[in-house]
């Protein structure tokens, strides 16, 4: 695997290999010195065009734990604000010779574009509403820890599916590992044709009891302004996962950050069924495994000398 742009870049065996390696990395986090030299001397560039707390920090922590150098590049306060195009930015930053670029942008397919413009390996940390593959991997990791296996598990993804890259990556990853996925949400927030991803579609929580896992999506407040839902109040009344709707044996997941009182009621967030904290913790080891998968055992990117830079002359 050269890049991780989509869950489609991985087959079941590839996903399992990454998860097994992630598992082996958990031991590092428990050491007094939380560092291993696996990626010493490698450069990881975090290129974030969208606000992010946990994804960016967990990539940074993952890279540093593996002893890689990390450069953080946030779009705000940079040349991007002066009108530099994505292509020019990537080509400029490529002059720093990164071995791997982690990129998040609001645009579908941007990570794939970047992969075509740089010699570095590229990890998609979210491209618009398209995909967020490392989120899906850490979710699968968390579930595997909890359930042992996803084979035959019934997973319901509930909420704003239309605007969710997490939903797309997770439907693909969960089904690859043998789970049966149902997406559920207001008909205005499930795109026409979504079944083609390999899931079924429900518009009410009436059959939520069938689920082994309930995965709630973040409901953004601005969705009301476009009349996707008449009000958050009505949304919560129909779709909120609360103590009444969540069964005792069901596992509850959420990609964060949670809107308390909207998609989740306070009592379930803090319930023993919730694995939201485990998801965050899994983020670091899974991203370590992804960086390792893409960089370890591979030489630095094959680069031809830049003819515009004169070769150093030896005296």
């Amino acid at each position, binding site marked *: 695997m050269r890049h991780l742009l989509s869950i489609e870049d991985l087959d079941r065996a590839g996903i399992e290999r990454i998860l097994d390696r992630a598992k082996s990395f958990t031991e590092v986090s428990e050491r007094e010195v939380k560092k291993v030299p696996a990626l010493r001397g490698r450069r990881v560039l975090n290129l974030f065009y969208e606000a992010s707390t946990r994804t960016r920090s967990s990539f940074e922590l993952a890279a540093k734990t593996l002893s890689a150098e990390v450069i953080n590049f946030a779009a705000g306060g940079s040349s991007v604000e002066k009108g530099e195009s994505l292509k020019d930015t990537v080509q400029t930053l490529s002059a720093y010779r990164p071995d791997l670029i982690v990129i998040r942008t609001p645009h579908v397919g941007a990570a794939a574009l970047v992969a075509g413009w740089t010699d570095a390996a590229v990890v998609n940390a979210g491209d618009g509403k398209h995909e967020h593959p490392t989120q899906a991997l850490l979710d699968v990791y968390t579930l595997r820890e909890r359930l042992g296996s996803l084979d035959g598990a019934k997973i319901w993804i509930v909420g704003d599916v239309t605007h969710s890259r997490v939903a*797309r990556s997770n439907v693909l990853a969960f089904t690859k590992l043998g789970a049966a996925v149902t997406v559920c949400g207001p008909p205005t927030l499930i795109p026409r044709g979504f079944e083609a991803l390999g899931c079924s579609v429900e518009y009410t929580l009436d059959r939520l009891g069938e689920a082994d896992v309930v995965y709630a999506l973040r409901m953004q407040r601005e969705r009301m302004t476009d009349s996707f839902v008449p009000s958050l109040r009505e949304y919560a009344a129909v779709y909120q996962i609360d103590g009444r709707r969540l069964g005792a044996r069901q596992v509850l997941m959420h990609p964060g950050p949670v809107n308390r009182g909207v998609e989740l009621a306070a009592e379930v967030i803090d319930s023993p069924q919730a694995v939201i904290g485990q998801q965050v913790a899994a983020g670091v080891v899974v991203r370590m495994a992804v960086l390792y998968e893409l960089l370890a055992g591979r030489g630095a990117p094959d680069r031809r000398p830049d003819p515009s830079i004169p070769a150093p002359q030896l005296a």
Partner: protein
Amino acid sequence: MSAPDRLVCRPQEPAELLIRGAHVLDPRAGLDAPHDVLVRAGEIAELGDPGTLEAPAGAEVIDGAGRHLFPGFVDPHVHLRTPGQEHKEDLDSGTRSAAAGGFVAVVAMPNTDPTVDCAPVLRSLREAARREARVPVGFLASVTRGLQGDALTEMAELRGDGALGFTDDGKPVYRAAMLRRALQYQRLCGGVLALHEEDPSLSGNGVMHEGEVSARLGLGGIPSISESTMIARDAAIAGYEGGRIHIQHLSARESVAAVAEAKARGVRITAEASPHHLTLTDAAVPVALDTRLKMNPPLRSEDDRQAIIGGLLDGTIDCVATDHAPHAREEKEVPWEEAPMGTTGLETAFAALYTELVLPGVLGLGLVVEKLTAGGALFDLPVPQIAVGRPADLCLADLAAEWEVGEAGYESRSENCCFAGRRLRGRVLATVAAGAVAYRQRTFSVVGAA
């Protein structure tokens, strides 16, 4: 109102030409056999059996054996980007591109900067075309000032100064009452109203066809009903006012049905379809999110594509139009959602239709030629015909030639062609437009001067 020449072109040397033995295919003229075609002073002077005509002194002789000669194509829908966006295309490059595709006349859209919405802009544009255009160009003016949708242009004056008709192409005439006024005013000044049909409230932030592919990619979808509901509305208004409308770039099954229904009711309505909607679908998009495949209306489903082919076959769709829409490389080399809509199409129209539809037996070659030449009729322009006494409007093509789109660059200033990299069959070798040689393939040599 005196009518000026509707089409303008730079002055050209009238051709003296003998095309020997080419297979002449002109369905309207009833020709489908090898002939010698003699062009004198830019007119078709004589047709004869192969080998029977002699070249007069000074005439150029072209060996047509094994090649096809069609009446020249007419494109009722191109964007020449002039004035104001000459970095994408100008009158010279755009008409060179047309000639390279076998087109002998094109109709330019007014969504330029400034908009062609008043007589001075139209007059200066036509003046420029008299200096620069390699093939005759006609211009549409906008229906509303600045394409803003809230005030009619001075349609009568614009018609007097040579506007072929009117369109707000790129945008719909969103307010029904504004379209109704324009159709009422059409009784005074004539000029067909060419309509880009789209309900912006349904298209929303859509950037591709709404369907399984957009759902998978997380891209905003443009539903088929965004187009078809506006066609139904506008056909009803045109029927009520007795006005004449032309529907641009049909893309959806529902749209073809809406046009067919209006035609059956007797509404004065015509329609066009583009080579890309006839040959490509949204399934081509996810491969690399190649922004050259992003246009408006978007590539739709296979079912929609089949319906458009059906519309061409049953006459619901009157002509093929390329919607040639050049954009600069840096404008297209951005993420899909940021990229402007549009693909170039003049240089690939014939080869794409021939390769994807004629060779597999979906459409007859005669029908394709008929639809590629019919585009002028809706603006009351003469339809090119291979007949003695008619101006020479000809396209010489080699159907056996296989080429890769973009392999040798483009005549257009822009390279955003949705067929880039595809191998196509059928290559235009030479184009004679309004009696003058407008294009000759660089590697194509003539037999010699007699």
